């Protein structure tokens, strides 16, 4: 359905809908890659200048610090029985105690470590598989693309959670198994997006230039094109991390993880097993869930900001809103007819 571009002989600057806003070169994908390091730093700086992104990054930083300094924040073994079971939160035990008399706060702090590690590991693994498979399919097209796309689509259509459960039931229990099955089921989402973007990128001038100058295909894909698609790959990794943390918690909640390790998922499993909620001990259940939600929300914010910065349409919309917000003129948000704003003079 590429009729829009083909039928217009002249690129029109001012369409009736008013898209006259200039597009930054990286958004159109026509830019030559800058030196890697400065591009990365520039990208991170631009991302953090966005308020949503900064907020999301702050939340993540906080959790990372909690995970790293768990032994400092909550010294001792979080599995130890320290008090009477199901005690409500108090000055001594901020989040109360579990049905087995463990400190919920200590468990939540230590759980951060395991949950985040698995999440980030799977996120990175998924991003790498996605980049390799998606970009290869998109660059080569033809048979290669047919086969890889078929594989992607099969993976997408097979219901992930039942597959996870079945796999986890057959494989030896443990964190490694969990990480493996999460990566195994999680990769095609990002790969699909990268593939379609690669199909568009393949037609760009700088790719043809690289082809003519005889660069190797691997180099073209990963050194020339990939830097122009970082935001997509990063966004895919964020999404995969959220998926991994949530699915891990889900599997563990079902009792399919390694229930002797402490993670947010196993905390919830034990809360369910010890009837935490049904005896009114909400504190065994609420903190871990909130942590997962906060991390997911932080990644969602980062992704939203990333989209806002790199998606020309959203960016244009935001900047126009800024202009409209700054000017004193009151405009209806969605006018049915062109607004008339008479300027004095």
């Amino acid at each position, binding site marked *: 359905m590429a009729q829009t571009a083909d039928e217009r002989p002249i*690129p029109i600057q001012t369409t009736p809908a*008013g898209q*006259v806003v200039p597009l930054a070169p990286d958004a159109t994908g026509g830019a030559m890659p800058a030196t890697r390091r400065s591009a990365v730093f520039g990208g991170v700086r631009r991302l953090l200048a966005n308020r949503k992104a900064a907020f999301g990054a702050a939340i993540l930083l906080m959790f990372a610090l909690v995970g790293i300094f768990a032994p400092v924040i909550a010294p001792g073994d979080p599995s130890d029985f320290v008090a009477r079971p199901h005690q409500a939160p108090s000055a001594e035990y901020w989040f109360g105690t579990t049905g087995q008399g463990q400190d919920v706060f200590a468990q939540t702090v230590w759980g951060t470590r395991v949950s985040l590690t698995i999440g980030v590991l799977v996120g990175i693994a998924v991003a790498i598989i996605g980049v390799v498979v998606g970009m290869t399919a998109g660059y080569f097209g033809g048979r290669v693309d047919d086969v890889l796309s078929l594989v992607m689509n099969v993976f997408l259509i097979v219901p992930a959670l039942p597959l996870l459960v079945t796999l986890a039931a057959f494989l030896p229990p443990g964190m490694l198994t969990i990480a493996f099955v999460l990566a195994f089921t999680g990769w095609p989402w990002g790969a699909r997006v990268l593939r379609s973007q690669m199909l568009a990128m393949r037609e760009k001038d700088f790719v043809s230039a690289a082809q003519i100058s005889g660069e190797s295909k691997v180099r073209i894909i990963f050194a020339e094109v990939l830097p122009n698609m970082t935001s997509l790959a990063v966004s895919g990794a964020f999404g995969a991390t959220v998926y991994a943390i949530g699915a891990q918690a889900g599997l563990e909640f079902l009792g399919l993880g390694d229930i002797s390790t402490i993670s947010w998922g196993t905390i919830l499993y034990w809360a369910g097993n010890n009837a935490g909620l049904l005896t009114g001990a909400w504190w065994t259940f609420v903190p871990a869930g909130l942590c997962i939600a906060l991390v997911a929300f932080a990644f969602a914010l980062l992704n939203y900001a990333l989209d806002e910065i790199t998606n020309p349409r959203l960016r244009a919309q935001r*900047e126009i809103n800024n202009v409209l917000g700054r000017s004193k003129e009151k405009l209806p948000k969605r006018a049915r*007819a062109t607004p008339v704003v008479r*300027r004095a003079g």
Partner: protein
Amino acid sequence: MPAPPPSSAGPVSVALLDHRRDGADAPLLEVHDLHVEYLSPRGPVRAVDGVSFTIRPGEVLGLAGESGSGKSTIAHAILRTLHPPAVITGGEVRFRGQDLLAMSDEELEQFRWRDVSMVFQSAMNALNPVMTVGDQIIDTILAHQEMPRQRARARAVELFEIVGIDPGRLNAYPFQLSGGMRQRAVIAIALALDPPMMIMDEPTTALDVVVQRDIMQQIEDLKTRLGFSILFITHDLSLLVEFSDRIAIMYAGEIVEFAPAREIFDNPLHPYTRGLMSSFPALTGEKVRLTGIPGAPPDMVAPPTGCRFHPRCSQVKPMHRQVVPRLREVTPGHFVACHLYPEMG
């Protein structure tokens, strides 16, 4: 917002452009000192900057200029189908004396198509892809006239016969029609309510040359038969010369030359008009070398001072860079905004 640059051509009185305002020849459409801006982060883009013209019943007014000169924006401003960030910032648009800029949404809905209809540049994009062309005619008729669906359908059959498409194709979807047929279908929709005026925005640009001739011939015939006025917009000056009564040449949001069609053809005055004339092979007449105009249209956030065409003009003098040329009559009925010509007597 930066201070607006010194005012350009300035309002030209309507009377100046149209000598006969009384009786049956009273103008159908009057556009007076129209200003349209696109709000952008860099400041307002002055897409249409003080444009005035009139159209009499049965007249064909041609509007020519490069893409981005503001032609299409004028067309959409008349129907008020531009959306923010586009804003009408000044001027008057009257149809049979009614002020279009003061109309309520409901009044506008009635005015549109009943009084002025429009043929879009790309018929493929103008037609709803998931609705049959017949239904798209019928819903136009039913939006304005209360009648049984059967009668609207009979009218659609009639319209297809008028534009020379087999009425059996009323049940076709846009993608099932050829480019020429789609454009005819759009013309049929434009004729649906038998409006006194039609705007044609590059109606043949997307078509190949042979189909182009056919469609133009058809429009000509329909006009003679039905007697509507046309505001005809194109970048193809040779097409205009054959087809219109008077021609206005637009550059950078302003009308820079305005004269009867024959006069523009025989005696183009503005260096920009001359450039445009030489960018197209004349369909009739002797062969001339195509030269075109060097340079690109200006940035309309900060248009050039003085004569807006000066950076691209071969006959520029220092004074032209500072003083804004006014549109004035240099020979009877021939107006030009250029310092090279003295005002008439």
